[in-house]
């Protein structure tokens, strides 16, 4: 780690943080920032304009994966910069991009099988179950577990367990076997969505109706209506009751699917 810079370093940080301020190290260089800011806002407070390492600012896009350590601790930790508040003595570095291998495949030509996963990512079978990926995941996903289900060819379980992945790639960055967990995950999810989950019959029925132009006239008639008539139709339309949703309605895709 870089030595502490002296004098008027960074944005004039000092050794003793003034009240309400904490000191952080952006890639080794010290800055003083107000406490309570997210890491992302702290970088901006320090004077940086972010191009890399900043996306949705809401925890969904995986652009701001951050590795950090706090003073006096040897342990490396991870966070999403947009979702994590700064702590005093944080040494920060962002990993906005990781050069992981993404396989190219034609989803139309695959089967929902172990073979498809292995063909795309033969290296993933080398997983040594060290659980580093699980520890590094900022989403707290059971990464190692879904690698295990993937190795068994259980597409549904792999899809389910990996579902909350935001594709930041931090798992792959720490993997001693060079596997690309997050890419195995999305392949499993696409295979599940396309081949394992049953097709929606009501959707197929509706497409059949649409192909015959069944609804065109109804809509064209509404388009021709005077606004006051359309308004009347809207104001008096019946609303499907928001009755108590059944147990299954609150559960998610794979759990409601064939993975039982």
């Amino acid at each position, binding site marked *: 780690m870089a030595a502490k810079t002296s004098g008027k370093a960074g944005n004039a940080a000092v050794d003793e943080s003034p009240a309400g301020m904490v000191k952080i190290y952006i890639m080794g260089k010290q800055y003083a920032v107000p406490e309570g800011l997210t890491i992302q806002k702290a970088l901006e407070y320090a004077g940086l304009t972010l191009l890399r390492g900043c996306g949705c600012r809401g925890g969904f896009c995986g652009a701001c994966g951050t590795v950090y350590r706090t003073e006096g601790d040897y342990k490396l930790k991870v966070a999403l910069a947009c979702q994590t508040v700064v702590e005093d003595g944080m040494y920060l570095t962002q990993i906005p991009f990781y050069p992981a291998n993404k396989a190219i495949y034609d989803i139309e030509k695959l089967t929902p099988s172990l073979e498809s996963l292995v063909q795309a990512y033969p290296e993933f079978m080398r997983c040594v179950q060290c659980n580093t990926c699980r520890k590094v995941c900022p989403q707290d996903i059971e990464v190692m577990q879904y690698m295990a289900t993937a190795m068994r060819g259980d597409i549904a379980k792999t899809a389910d367990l990996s579902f909350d992945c935001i594709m930041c790639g931090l798992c792959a960055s720490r993997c001693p076997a060079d596997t690309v967990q997050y890419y195995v995950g999305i392949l499993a999810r*696409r295979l599940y969505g396309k081949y394992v989950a049953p*097709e929606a*019959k009501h959707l197929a029925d509706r*497409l059949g109706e649409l192909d015959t132009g069944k609804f065109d006239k109804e809509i064209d008639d509404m388009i021709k209506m005077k606004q006051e008539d359309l308004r009347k139709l809207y104001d008096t339309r019946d609303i499907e009751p*928001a009755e108590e949703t059944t147990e299954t309605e609150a559960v998610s895709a794979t759990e*409601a*699917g064939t993975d039982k």
Partner: protein
Amino acid sequence: MANQPSTDPYPKHMREAIKKVEATRTRRMSEDFPVLSADDKASLLKKFHPDHKAGELVDIKVGPSKGEKSFKEIESVIQAYSRVDPKGFDLSKIDFDVDVLVIGGGGAGSSAALVANEAGAKVLLVTKLRLGDANTMMAQGGIQAADKSNDPPSQHFLDVMGGGHYHNFPELVKALVLDAPYVMKWLQDLGAMFDKENDGTYITIHGGGTSRKRMHAARDYSGAEIMRTLKDEVINKGIEVLEFSSAIELLKDEEGKCAGAILYNMETEEHFVCRAKTTVIATGGAGRLHVQGFPTSNHYGATADGIVLAYRAGAPFVFMDAIQYHPTGSAYPEQILGLLVTEKVRGLGAQLINIDGDQFVYPLETRDVVSSAIIRECGERSKGTKTLSDVYGIWLDSPMIELKHGKGAIKKALPAMARQYERCDIDMTKDPILIYPTQHYQNGGVKINADAESDVPNLFIAGEATGGVHGRNRLMGNSLLDILVFGRRAGKNAAARSKDTKAGKLSMNHVDTFHKELKSAGIPEDRISPALLPDYRRPETVERQKGQVPLSGRV
């Protein structure tokens, strides 16, 4: 990663307020707040919706929508000068020569690129951040599609028109609702994992302003699921993508047709000329311009770049004076201020509660109505709950979801929401959360027809950058639908048109003409756009940066 919950995440006065929410919860479980009459809605909107606040709208003095109005923050990028000198720029050297140029790498841009590629066009997709960095990624609630037997597309049509207060362009709405089931089929075929019952039936719920349960979701990662699937497919198809490259000006040919764009590498700051037979703009909205100082739920890149370019090229706007404030932006704690709390929370049964522990609005009115009611409750009626930082908010009673649907329902149906609050040590299954409206969506935008073409020939536009589909107020679940319906239409039509278009001589005369208009209207010459990124520098930083020259030397 959640920090150790050591103390109560809520300060004492907020904890006291929560007790009132808890005290009335049992009673409220069976209490339905009445839906407002049409007249009451109209007067509520007129008095409390931010669009109607005096002094915020300014005149547009130049360009194809001259005489209309928009908000100060948007007007300041629309009526501004180019980042390049339109007369001094060398357009003779072509760096990229393609059939279809797609500007924007979100849901609309990616679907346009996929469909155009499928149709055999040579496609280049450029995006100023990473492929997939877009508001699409952040949409939690879901996507509407009328695909169940009790829900003909005409019912969807009626909901959209009423929700948009009948200002919508009916032909666009017709396209939206009739294409919707095809979009769901496309997503299913691509392997996007939407929530289904055992037999494959889509699980659908209500959204604000829907008359049928028509909202399809992928847990509360609906947009993320769509975006990561489309991104994966764009890469699989080998479509050429330039990341960290923005389009900063459109180009035209001798006949005035759109013919490509000037690209700007955001990292090396180099310019490139892209000649394209047809162009698709899919650059999204304007949340990061922070209209009226509101916080926003939007992505870092939402700075209205595409509409700036299209306007200079001669494409008029519609409804650029209609902004959607999402009723439930997070109001506490500070680090998630403005971030979205999905409408699905209300869809699953959580009510909106004031400081007295009472409801004051039916939670699934349209977004503009709910936002206005919250602003009234916190303002004129003084019934909001104050946070530490002088922000007022309303309680969203999330624990009701678990009471209605059983323990664990929030984790299953709203994992992203639960995680966001866990990171702040708040357990939304046990405690309500504080919300206030946040700038969410640009209802208006560039005018298009049902083929997704603007008034500038060969310039197609899709998604939030357009206006007309949603009238003056969009319903939940119709923007994920919009970007896919019109993204696909733009891709298809741009590819088809490129087949009978001959590449012409490139020019930026339209920009030069626009500059002259700006000058005679007295617009100050230091106004430059598109903005590309929001400016979050502190004034101290700006002051210290004065007089700098680039590190690599004087240009």
